[in-house]
């Protein structure tokens, strides 16, 4: 802990003092220091010592109202629901509130670990609800509503009575009643905690960096024979063109070789292929079916009209919507292509 915290604290001090100046000096004309209002909007974390906790309060009753309008659909009326997310409440006892350890966590036959069985600090709940809830509209609850929802949850978890009003003044008393408040362990090799980086709690990886007498850098001593280069096709064509890795060109360019008909590309671009396939019925008929029905008939102009104005009842109940965005020339190209049997190339 000590080593890391000092480093972190030092870095923090440096940041506070110099970030604005450095940004301004190193990159003149680029960016600007964040305004206090911007920092305030971003800096919403609530620590286990309640640093950053906004002033406010909320009652269990108010929380129930908010809960039933915004939270119930996913978490259930009593926060017991297991259908969308794991249950929030349950599995804790009055005895746990005395000891600060959730006894059910030690049971292997207990069906589920709920949030209140695990969470050690009530500030985490406040922070999380304010930061991330409701799922579809995070950060839309007012600070008082977050207090209220949390009070309702605490009431469901039987930590506070139903006439309780949670506020920044009494949240520390609630912390002293949290069922698993003593259940947090930091004696492990994961940050943060006193065990971090100590001999007794080494991480379970044996990857020690080499500092002396290291192996020389790898040298290429062999290369694939020519005939084997394209054993897996063109590697360049199989990589997404993102980042520095492009893959080696180890064969003919498949994209070039398989360049389809321009009309096919047009059909794809115009969204036709969402409902039509070349050779299979999707929402609409396949293009090969269409070509077969109109084979030998002079129906191209009529079909252009159907594309532009929409059509219904010819191929079943599902109507073809009017393609008003399609240019006349494009519609003609598509119809000619379809009547030609919708060739891929």
């Amino acid at each position, binding site marked *: 802990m000590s080593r890391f915290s000092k480093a972190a604290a030092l870095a923090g001090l440096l940041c506070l003092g110099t970030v604005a100046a450095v940004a301004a000096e190193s990159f003149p004309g680029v960016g600007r220091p964040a305004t206090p209002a911007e920092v305030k909007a971003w800096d919403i974390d609530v620590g286990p010592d309640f640093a950053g906790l906004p002033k406010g309060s909320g009652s269990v009753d108010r929380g129930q109202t908010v809960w039933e309008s915004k939270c119930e659909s996913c978490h*259930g*009326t*009593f926060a*017991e*629901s297991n259908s969308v997310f794991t249950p929030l409440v*349950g599995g804790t006892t009055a005895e746990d509130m005395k000891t600060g350890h959730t006894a059910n966590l030690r049971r292997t*036959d207990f*069906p589920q670990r709920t949030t209140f069985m695990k969470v050690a600090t009530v500030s985490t709940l406040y922070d999380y609800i304010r930061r991330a809830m409701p799922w579809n509209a995070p950060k839309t609850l007012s600070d008082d509503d977050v207090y209220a929802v949390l009070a309702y949850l605490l009431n*469901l978890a039987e930590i506070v009575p139903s006439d309780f009003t949670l506020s920044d003044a009494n949240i520390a008393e609630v912390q002293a009643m949290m069922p698993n408040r003593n259940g947090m362990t930091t004696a492990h090799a994961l940050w943060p905690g006193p065990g971090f980086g100590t001999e007794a709690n080494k991480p379970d990886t044996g990857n020690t960096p080499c500092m002396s007498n290291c192996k020389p850098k790898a040298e290429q001593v062999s290369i694939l024979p020519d005939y084997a280069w394209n054993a897996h096709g063109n590697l360049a064509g199989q990589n997404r063109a993102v980042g520095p890795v492009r893959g080696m060109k180890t064969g003919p360019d498949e994209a070039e070789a398989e360049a389809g008909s321009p009309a096919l590309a047009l059909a794809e671009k115009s969204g036709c292929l969402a409902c039509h396939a070349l050779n299979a019925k999707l929402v609409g008929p396949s293009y090969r079916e269409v070509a077969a029905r109109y084979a030998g008939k002079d129906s191209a102009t009529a079909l252009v009209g159907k594309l532009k104005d929409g059509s219904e009842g010819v191929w079943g109940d599902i109507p073809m919507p009017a393609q008003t965005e399609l240019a006349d020339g494009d519609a003609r190209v598509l119809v000619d292509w379809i009547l030609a049997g919708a060739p891929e190339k």
Partner: protein
Amino acid sequence: MGSPMKIRATSKDGVTEIKVLMSHEMETGQRKDASGAVVPAWFINEVTAKLGDKTVLQAQWGPSVSKNPYLAFKVKGGQAGDKVTVTWVDNKGDTRTDTATVS
């Protein structure tokens, strides 16, 4: 005498929706504990719900119902202020009754 049920009842457009969360072990009698002994069956086998004085739901449950059962149902009638009374009886003869007010 188990721990209390949580009951919520809300009335809207002449229909009362009642939701109940019971707290019960609901042992099936099929499980064995670590030493191989059968864990004796212990489950709710009778549930009754009353709206006011009128019984609106009677159910016979068995061992297939989950631990801490959740029950929700809708009843015609009822208005804010009415009493909802839910009672369960388990196979050991234990029983619990809880009351809530329709809102």
